């Protein structure tokens, strides 16, 4: 078993939500007319503040919940379709912080997964995820990092075409996060993946499309590159006297934002920086840093959510 994946022609939408709404028994409207499609072979991240409806969407895709309105398709199949089980067998799911059995070993859990998927090599998977020496431990006895590895190993056992990842690194210590992220990087390459996360650095590192949900609605669905291109470029400046720098920038009609020991101002570095720098230096401000700043996903996310 390898963590790497087979390739396929990117023609069909692997994940498609069509006007999906979900209202819980309690009356909470978790999703409100959500529509988006993830083509095969695309890695998308699903972002949004708490309560935005991310986990509900994953639950709908895994067939555990039924939409109140609209339709959800996984590899072209609805949960009620006869072909849905076959679609699920081509999908690996990493749930968010599942509980761990105290009477089931790692090997037994993987063997159950192999039976239900109808394929997979348990021993090779144990080796690929560094779980061999923990194979006969009950799940509850595994450390947080190894628990997450096991969940990931279960999702990848049958070498699925689609991966649904619900906050796969949440709650892990930095070392375990780094290890799991490295596994994810390899596992997601070449697969269709929907990564639900709060970690914007992780989302930026692992995906190329962004879906931002807020209040149960799709706020943004675009390739990360398009989103970046649309974002306002900024220039980072730093000077020995930060107060004086800020004052000089304000005097030129710019609104600086704090960024560590420097300041960010809107502007295209190639076009605006030379004149700005000349003016600042001429005005006696000792600028020692001036560079363009590519907008981070965090900035894009905050701009979208606050808009």
């Amino acid at each position, binding site marked *: 078993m390898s963590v790497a994946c087979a390739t396929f022609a990117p023609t069909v939408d692997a994940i498609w939500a069509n006007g999906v709404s979900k209202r*819980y*028994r309690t009356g909470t409207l978790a999703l409100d007319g959500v529509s988006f499609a993830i083509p095969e072979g695309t890695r998308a991240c699903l972002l949004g503040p708490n309560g935005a409806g991310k986990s509900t969407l994953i*639950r709908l895709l*895994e*067939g*555990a*919940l*039924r939409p109140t309105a609209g339709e959800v398709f996984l590899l072209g199949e609805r949960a009620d379709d006869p072909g849905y*089980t076959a679609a*699920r*067998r081509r*999908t690996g*799911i*990493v*749930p*968010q*912080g*599942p*509980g*761990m*059995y105290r*009477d*089931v070993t790692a090997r*037994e*859990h993987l063997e*159950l*997964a192999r*039976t*239900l*998927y109808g394929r997979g090599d348990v021993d090779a998977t144990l080796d690929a995820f560094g779980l061999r020496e923990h194979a006969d431990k009950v*799940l509850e006895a595994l450390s947080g990092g190894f628990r997450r590895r096991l*969940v990931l190993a*279960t*999702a990848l056992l049958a070498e699925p075409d689609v991966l649904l990842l619900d906050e796969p690194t949440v709650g892990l210590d930095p070392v375990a996060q780094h290890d799991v992220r490295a596994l994810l990087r390899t596992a997601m390459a070449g697969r269709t993946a929907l990564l639900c996360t709060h970690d914007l650095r992780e989302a930026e590192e692992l995906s190329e499309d962004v879906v931002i949900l807020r209040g149960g609605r799709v706020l943004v669905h675009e390739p990360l590159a398009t989103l970046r291109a649309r974002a306002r470029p900024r220039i980072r400046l730093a000077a020995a006297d930060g107060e004086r720098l800020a004052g000089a920038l304000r005097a030129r009609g710019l609104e600086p934002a704090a960024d560590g020991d420097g300041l960010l101002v809107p502007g295209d570095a190639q076009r605006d920086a030379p004149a700005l720098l000349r003016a600042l230096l001429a005005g006696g401000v000792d600028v020692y840093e001036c560079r363009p700043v590519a907008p981070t996903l965090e900035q894009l996310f905050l701009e979208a959510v606050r808009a």
Partner: protein
Amino acid sequence: MSPVRALLRRELRQLGRSRGALLSSIGFPALMLVVIPIPQLLGIRATAQRMPEGVPLPPGLASSRPEDLFVLLLYPLFVTIAGLMVPSIAATYAVVSERERRTLELLIALPVRLADILRAKLLALLLLGATTTFPLLAITTTAMLIVGLATPFQVALLFGVLAAALTAATCLAFVLTLLARDFRTANNLNGVLVLPMLVMTFAVLSLVPGDARLVVHAVVLLALGGAALLAGLRWISFERYLE
């Protein structure tokens, strides 16, 4: 292998490893089906007993000899209690604990439907109940046959009552599964669901005369279990199990 079969094997293995589930599933029916009734059975044979005279009794009691009362009223009551309680108790281990500990998330992530998971769990409860109670019932009914207290037909009816009680309790366990989020609620609901069935049991056994009472009792148990199952399917969404 079908998903339900694979999940059933896993459920049975887990129930087998659960000390609490096993002790409850063997200890309680052993008390109800063998330990308590056998001395009574022997007592009936050892000493002559009479029904009170001049006291108005329901038809099921009035027409019976003390021996018949044991076979057709007292022992069926024990059989019903055992049959109703074993799946209900096991359900708190197999089903409610899974929900409480959030381990269900691991199962739902696999290519299997929630309905299959529930089906496997309920089948496991039924199988566990049958495996532990039928041999115990066989011990006592064999003793009844040896001492001439019951006819083979009555013994067959007692097995029917036990099967009906197990089936009804499994249906109740399904409702319990969807409604109870934790052990405490599960135990409270067990009481709420099982108590009326026990009252109904005593009513049927004491009101219906002759061997027919066991048939009527089994039918009523199956009807109540079926009603619980249908009500659960109709009004309680499977999604509740995930909340």
